[in-house]
């Protein structure tokens, strides 16, 4: 749709631009709104966000490179390895790798400067779906993460995309996932007063996003989705995420009722 934007003669990838807009808005909400409920300074949250972003970049990229090792091994004789590595550095990120890397970055910050990891996670987790939601708009502009062929309401047709199939009406995957993520953000926002200091927030996010991702995967049309036993890799990860979320909910609920009975 619009993979690159020219600003003052510099060529920016619209996906990168949109992602940073999302991170900026998310950081402002985390620093000025959610920080009030925890005993952590605004400065520490800002630094933790920086560490988290670095972790996201490294984690998403590392997992992407790891998944491409078979390709490099298979084709090392015919490829210019250096050029291929540079091209791989430029493109390709794995969301779940980014999620793990981001939390790892925050963990390193919390250990380095002795700040509660749980509190930092709880603050930042609230804005993850918002950033993700805005990021999907970037996907729409770049033309990646597109849906399957679809002729119903809201179908999107790309004409000059080098990623999505051109001139074929597609399911508006990016828009639907963006809206779903925004709804998750609203739900977390509505429940934060009830759950703010408990791991129920993490559980709620894992369950909601797991369900959304599991269902939406059926409508995706991009790439080969790594199917194992009729389900894509993302769907298997979503199942793990949902189970993890439910167990967190149950565990926290039992902890609270035990405290009350004591």
């Amino acid at each position, binding site marked *: 749709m619009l993979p690159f934007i020219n600003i003052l003669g*510099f060529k920016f990838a619209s996906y990168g631009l949109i992602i940073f807009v999302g991170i900026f808005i998310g950081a402002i909400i985390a620093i000025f709104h959610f920080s009030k409920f925890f005993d952590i300074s605004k400065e520490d949250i800002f630094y933790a966000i920086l*560490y988290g972003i670095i972790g996201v970049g490294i984690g998403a990229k590392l997992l992407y490179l790891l998944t491409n090792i078979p390709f490099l091994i298979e084709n090392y004789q015919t490829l210019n390895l250096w050029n291929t590595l540079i091209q791989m550095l430029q493109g390709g990120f794995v969301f779940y790798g980014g999620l793990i890397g981001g939390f790892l970055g925050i963990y390193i910050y919390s250990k380095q400067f002795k700040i509660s990891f749980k509190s930092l996670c709880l603050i930042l987790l609230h804005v993850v779906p918002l950033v993700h939601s805005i990021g999907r708009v970037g996907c729409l502009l770049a033309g990646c993460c597109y849906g399957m062929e679809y002729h119903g309401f809201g179908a999107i047709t790309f004409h000059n995309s080098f990623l999505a199939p051109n001139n074929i009406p597609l399911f508006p995957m990016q828009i639907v996932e963006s809206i779903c993520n925004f709804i998750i953000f609203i739900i977390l926002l509505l429940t934060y007063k009830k759950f703010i200091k408990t791991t129920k927030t993490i559980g709620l996010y894992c369950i909601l996003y797991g369900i959304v991702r599991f269902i939406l*995967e059926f409508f995706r049309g991009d790439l080969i989705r790594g199917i194992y036993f009729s389900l894509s890799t993302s769907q298997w990860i979503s199942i793990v995420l949902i189970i993890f979320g439910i167990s967190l909910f149950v565990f926290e609920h039992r902890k609270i009722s035990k405290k009350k009975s004591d």
Partner: protein
Amino acid sequence: MEEKKSNGLAIASLVLGILSIVIFIFLSFIGLSWIGLILGIVGIVLSVMAKKKNPTGMATAGLVLSIIGTVLCAMALIACIACVGALGQTAETTRDILTTIY
């Protein structure tokens, strides 16, 4: 001694921040933004460490410049060629993408 160390970190972060911006301006056209990105990231980490030990103006300047350099280089670099959902991307797909684009 501690102050000297944090001052060194602040200077290093300032230099790295400036370098990452310079690389973005002069070398992003030939696809070398990733060098600026790495320098910017190191600059951010060093400036945060410097600010935590001794919050000077130089450390703040290093942090700001490193963030600007990192963001600019990242925006020039991250094209979402395949922001795949999970480990679903295979060698076959990568080959297709690389041959389509390059």
